[in-house]
C-alpha cells in the first residue's frame, strides 16, 4: 500500500435518542458508526460498500468534518485532525472535499454555476487571487467536461449528470488531496453513470487524488477501487484488495451481498446459486450483541452472540506477507 494519507482509528458516531419533547431523558442511541478503522493510501481509491443503514454515509460526513465523532480519531498525513476548529480546520478542509449523491439538492438553485464553483475561492481567498477566479472556474468547467460558456447558467438548466459534474468541479476547486464521494453516481441514469465514473477516474490521475468511494453498487465499486471495505451496521466486517474481496469473500455477509447482485448476463441463470438472506438489517438503535450479522447469518452459533469478532487475517486465505491486506471480522473465517 502507498504511504497513508488518511487514517481512521476507532471512529464512533452515536446519535442520542431522547424521549419526551425537549428536555427528555436519554433513551439509548443510534449507533451509526461504531468503531471503524480505515487507512487510505495516497493516490488510492478505497471503496466502501454496504446497504442502507450501515453507516457509510455517516462515515463520509465524519471524514469531511460535517459531523463530530463521538470517539476515535482521524489522522491526515499523520496529524490528528479530529478535534480541530477555526483556522486550522479550514486549512484541513481545503484538502479533504466531498462529492454528494444527489445532484438535485447539492447545488444551490439560486446561484449561478460560476458562483457555485467559485464559492470555494471566496471562502478561501488565499487559494486564488480575485482576478484569476473567473478564469479558474472556466478551467474547472472544462476539466469536468462542461462548456466554459455555461458559467452564467443556473443548476436547473442542466441534467442530472451535468449537475454532478458541477458538484465535482466545486469539490476540485481548492485542489484537495482527498475526495470523499458519497454515492456519486447512484442518482444518475444508467447511460450517464459510466461517463461520471470515467470522469472521476481521469481526475484521479490528473490531480493525483485519493478517493474514498462510497456506494452500494458493487460492480462500480469494484471497477474504480484498489481496496474495498464492507460495512454492516456501523462496523467494517471485511476489508481487502478488490480481487481479495470479490473473488475470495471470507465474511458470510460479503458472500451474501456479492451473490445477491444480479449478474447482467442471462446465460446459465437457472443454475446460479444464490445466498438469500432472511429478514432485514436490524435497526442501528438496537444492535444485536456479539457479531452484528448473527441474526441473519447462516453460520451463526452461540459464540457469535457472546463475542464480537475483530478484524483479522482470514485463516488459510490470503498471502502471508508484511501487511495484512485481507482482514475479516468473523469467528469462522
Amino acid at each position, binding site marked *: 500500500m502507498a504511504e497513508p494519507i488518511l487514517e481512521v482509528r476507532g471512529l464512533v458516531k452515536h446519535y442520542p435518542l431522547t424521549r419526551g419533547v425537549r428536555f427528555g431523558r436519554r433513551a439509548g442511541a443510534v449507533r451509526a458508526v461504531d468503531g471503524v478503522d480505515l487507512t487510505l493510501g495516497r493516490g488510492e481509491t478505497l471503496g466502501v460498500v454496504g446497504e442502507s443503514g450501515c453507516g457509510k454515509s455517516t462515515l463520509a460526513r465524519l471524514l469531511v468534518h460535517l459531523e463530530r465523532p463521538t470517539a476515535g480519531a482521524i489522522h491526515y498525513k499523520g496529524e490528528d485532525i479530529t478535534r480541530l476548529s477555526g483556522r486550522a480546520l479550514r486549512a484541513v478542509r481545503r484538502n479533504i472535499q466531498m462529492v454528494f449523491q444527489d445532484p438535485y439538492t447539492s447545488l444551490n438553485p439560486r446561484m449561478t454555476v460560476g458562483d457555485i464553483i467559485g464559492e470555494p475561492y471566496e471562502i478561501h481567498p488565499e487559494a486564488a487571487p480575485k482576478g484569476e477566479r473567473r478564469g479558474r472556474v472556466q478551467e474547472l468547467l472544462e476539466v469536468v467536461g462542461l462548456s466554459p460558456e455555461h458559467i452564467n447558467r443556473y443548476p436547473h438548466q442542466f441534467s442530472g449528470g451535468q449537475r454532478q459534474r458541477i458538484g465535482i468541479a466545486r469539490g476540485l476547486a481548492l485542489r484537495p488531496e482527498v475526495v470523499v464521494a458519497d454515492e456519486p453516481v447512484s442518482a444518475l441514469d444508467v447511460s450517464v453513470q459510466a461517463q461520471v465514473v470515467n470522469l472521476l477516474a481521469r481526475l484521479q490521475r490528473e490531480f493525483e487524488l485519493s478517493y474514498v468511494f462510497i456506494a452500494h453498487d458493487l460492480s462500480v465499486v469494484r471497477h474504480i477501487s484498489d481496496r474495498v471495505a464492507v460495512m454492516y451496521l456501523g462496523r467494517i466486517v471485511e476489508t481487502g484488495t478488490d480481487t481479495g474481496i470479490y473473488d475470495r469473500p471470507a465474511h458470510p455477509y460479503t458472500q451474501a451481498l456479492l451473490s445477491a447482485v444480479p449478474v447482467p448476463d442471462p446465460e446459465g441463470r437457472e443454475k446460479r446459486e*444464490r445466498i438469500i438472506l432472511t429478514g432485514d438489517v436490524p435497526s442501528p438503535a438496537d444492535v444485536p450483541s456479539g457479531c452484528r450479522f448473527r441474526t441473519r447469518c447462516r453460520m451463526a452459533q452461540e459464540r457469535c452472540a457472546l463475542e464480537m469478532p475483530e478484524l483479522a487475517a482470514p485463516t488459510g486465505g490470503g498471502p502471508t506477507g508484511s501487511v495484512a491486506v485481507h482482514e475479516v471480522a468473523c469467528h469462522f473465517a
Partner: protein
Amino acid sequence: MLLEVRDLHVEFRARDGVARAVNGVSYGVAAGETLAVLGESGSGKSVTAQAVMGILDTPPGRITGGEILFQGRDLLKLTREERRRIRGAEMAMIFQDALSSLNPVLTVGDQLGEMFVVHRGMSKRDARVKAVELMDRVRIPAAKERIRQYPHQFSGGMRQRIMIAMALALEPALVIADEPTTALDVTVQAQIMELLAELRRETGMALVLITHDLGVVADVADRIAVMYAGRIVESAPVHDLYRAPAHPYTQGLLDSIPRLDHKGRELHAIRGLPPNLLTVPSGCAFHPRCPRARDECRTDVPPLHTVDARRGSACHLWRECLHG
C-alpha cells in the same frame, strides 16, 4: 396474447410545450410470460404502464392514439367503471415506493382485506382471514399478529411484500411492476425478486417488469423491450439480446457495465445525455449519441425492422450492429 399495446401515443402538456412521452409504442405479453421494459428516466416506460393500468394523470397527460388490447378488449374504449373493475381484479400494479403507495392511517390488514370487500363483496371477517392468507403467501412472518400493524411499522422490504400481496390478492392475470426493487438494498432486492419469481410460477400470471437495471432483467425476463425517448428501439428474447444486441443504444448500455477485464480502464460510456422530451432529436432520437449515426439517421425515423421472427430493432443499421 394476454396484453397487446398497439401504436400507443401519450402526450404531456408542460409549461414549455408538449412532451411526447410515448410515441408509437407496441408490445405484447403472452399469458405467464415475463416481459422486461428497460429504459432510463424519460424513456416513457412508466407512462406506458400507467396508460395500460388506466392510472395516467389526465391532465396533464393525454392518450392521443393507439389501442390497448387486454384479453381481446380495447381498454381505451371501456367506460371508467368497466376499467375500474378490471384494475386490481385482472391486472394489478406494484410501485417503486411502497411507503407512499400504502395508506398510513389504515392497518395493513384493512388495506389487504379491502380488496376482497370491494371487488368480491366479502364480509369484513372473511376478508381478514383472506388477508392473513395473503401475508403468509408473501412470506411475512407472524402474519396473524402483524395484520393489525400500520405500514410504517414494517421495514422497506416487508412493505414491498405487502404491496405484492395486494397486487396478487385477486389473482390477476397480469401484474405490472414499476421498478419494484429500485428503492431496496441488494440483499432485500434479491429476496423480493425471488418471491416474485416463485409467485409467478405458482399463479401463472404474466409479469411486465419495468426497470433500468440490466442485472435484474437478465435474471428474470423472458423477453425484453428496450425503450428510448418514447419509442421501443429493440425487442428481443432475453438471451438473444444479451448475446448480440441489434441496436446501438442497447449495445451501449451493455458495454457500459463495469466488467472484470476492463478493470482500471475507461468504461465504454454512451456519450451525451438522454434527450429532453420537448425537443426530441429529428430522425432517430438516439442519433446524437450514436457512434454509428449516418445522414439518414438524422432525417428518417427508423421503423421497427424485423430481425428475425422474434426480434425487432428500430435502427437503420441493425445488420451492422448485430454482426459487428
